[in-house]
């Protein structure tokens, strides 16, 4: 064997091929979806309602004690945000809710893009992340401002478990049609949103690939003048497995012309 053949053989043996190693593209996607640490805080948009950071945290804790109303939050910040879960289309940037200075619970891991959609020709994005004590913080934003100001965005945090298998955030403001979004038990195939007039909106649930908590999510546009009265998670067999009432004081109500689609 000459030297060249010896070198070739040595290289073959130096690092043999690992043909039994299995590729995992889903893992690549999950890693690509992971964001970097949120950026430092930016100035707040005073044109929006801005609860103080302490209010956000305490209302979130209060929500846990009462297992009831998620606070309706409108947070805005001047930082850009990156999208997760699907594929980031730009370099890592800060999420509007971390940059608002409102004391948003810290994420234990990645922020996930749960769903995107369009209502009344307005693209929206729903995000969620897990906190250190396994709560879920979830929010919805016009996609245009998810990337910049957070204008029109809302978020809430809740503990979704066997005792409280559903939560919600209902939102009405000028930048996005009236809507209701939230997490629900992973057994729920759909969520029924019952309106004040008795109409039921059936919203399919969806998974967020790679999300670290066992749950699904839902998002539904609501009519302008009929707020939601309660939300019910329904399993594949049509059985109600979770329900929360929405107190009148947090039901958004919009008049004609005050928001898109109204």
């Amino acid at each position, binding site marked *: *064997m000459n*030297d*060249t053949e*010896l*070198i*070739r*053989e*040595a*290289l*073959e*043996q*130096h*690092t*043999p*091929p*690992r*043909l039994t*190693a299995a*590729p*995992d*593209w*889903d*893992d*690549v*996607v*999950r*890693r*690509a979806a*992971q964001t970097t640490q949120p950026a430092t805080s930016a100035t707040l948009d005073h044109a929006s309602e801005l609860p103080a950071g302490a209010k956000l945290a305490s209302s979130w804790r209060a929500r846990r004690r009462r297992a009831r109303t998620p606070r309706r939050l409108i947070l805005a910040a001047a930082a850009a945000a990156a*999208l997760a*879960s*699907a*594929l*980031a*289309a*730009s*370099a*890592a940037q800060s999420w509007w809710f971390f940059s608002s200075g409102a004391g948003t619970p810290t994420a234990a891991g990645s922020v996930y893009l749960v*769903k*995107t959609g369009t209502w009344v020709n307005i693209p929206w994005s729903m995000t969620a992340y897990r906190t250190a004590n396994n709560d879920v913080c979830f929010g919805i934003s016009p996609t245009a401002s998810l990337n910049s100001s957070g204008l029109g965005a809302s978020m809430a945090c809740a503990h979704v478990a066997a005792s409280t298998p559903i939560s919600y955030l209902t939102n009405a403001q000028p930048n996005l049609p009236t809507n209701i979004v939230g997490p629900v038990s992973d057994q729920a195939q759909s969520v029924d949103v019952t309106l004040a007039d008795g109409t039921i909106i059936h919203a399919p649930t*969806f998974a967020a*690939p*790679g999300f670290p908590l066992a749950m699904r999510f839902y998002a539904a546009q609501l009519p302008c003048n009929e707020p939601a009265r309660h939300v019910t998670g329904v399993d594949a067999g049509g059985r109600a497995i979770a329900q929360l009432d929405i107190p009148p004081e947090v039901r958004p109500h919009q008049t004609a012309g005050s928001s898109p689609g109204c």
Partner: protein
Amino acid sequence: MTTSEAILTADEAISAEELEELYRSRYHRFLRVAEAITGDLPTAQDAVQEGFARALRARAQFRGESRPETWVWRCVVNAAHNNRRPAEAELSDEAMAEKPDPTAGVEPLTAAVIMKPLIAALPAQQRLALFLRYYADLDYRAISEVLGVELGTVGATLHKAHATLKKKLEEAQTP
């Protein structure tokens, strides 16, 4: 929403589907080069995953300075270099001076056993050129794009690597 669904931009140079196809079709070549760089399989697997994840995240920023596949190779190679264990890829001249003792009563040394420290002692660029040539089966143009060197440099780099290994091998075999 599927795990491969992409948010595409209008001027995207590499689609997520193309990246996935590249990943699936060439995975074991990427893994082999990564393991050659990092020195162990789990670290190499992580490097391949990270390299592709970076490519996936940054594909909108790809400006076409190279072919898409070689750009991805750079992502994976960089990830492998970031992950590799320190101090195991480099050998001092003293370590290189130790010669195998044919009278020690052990099994005859294989080419790999003889060559492994010699390969590790190569300059980094020569070593990487060898890996890309032998393990990834890249042509000289692709290697030049991955290494970030002129095309003509690749041949010279590989020639030097061979020459160094031959020289060290002869020294190692000299009683």
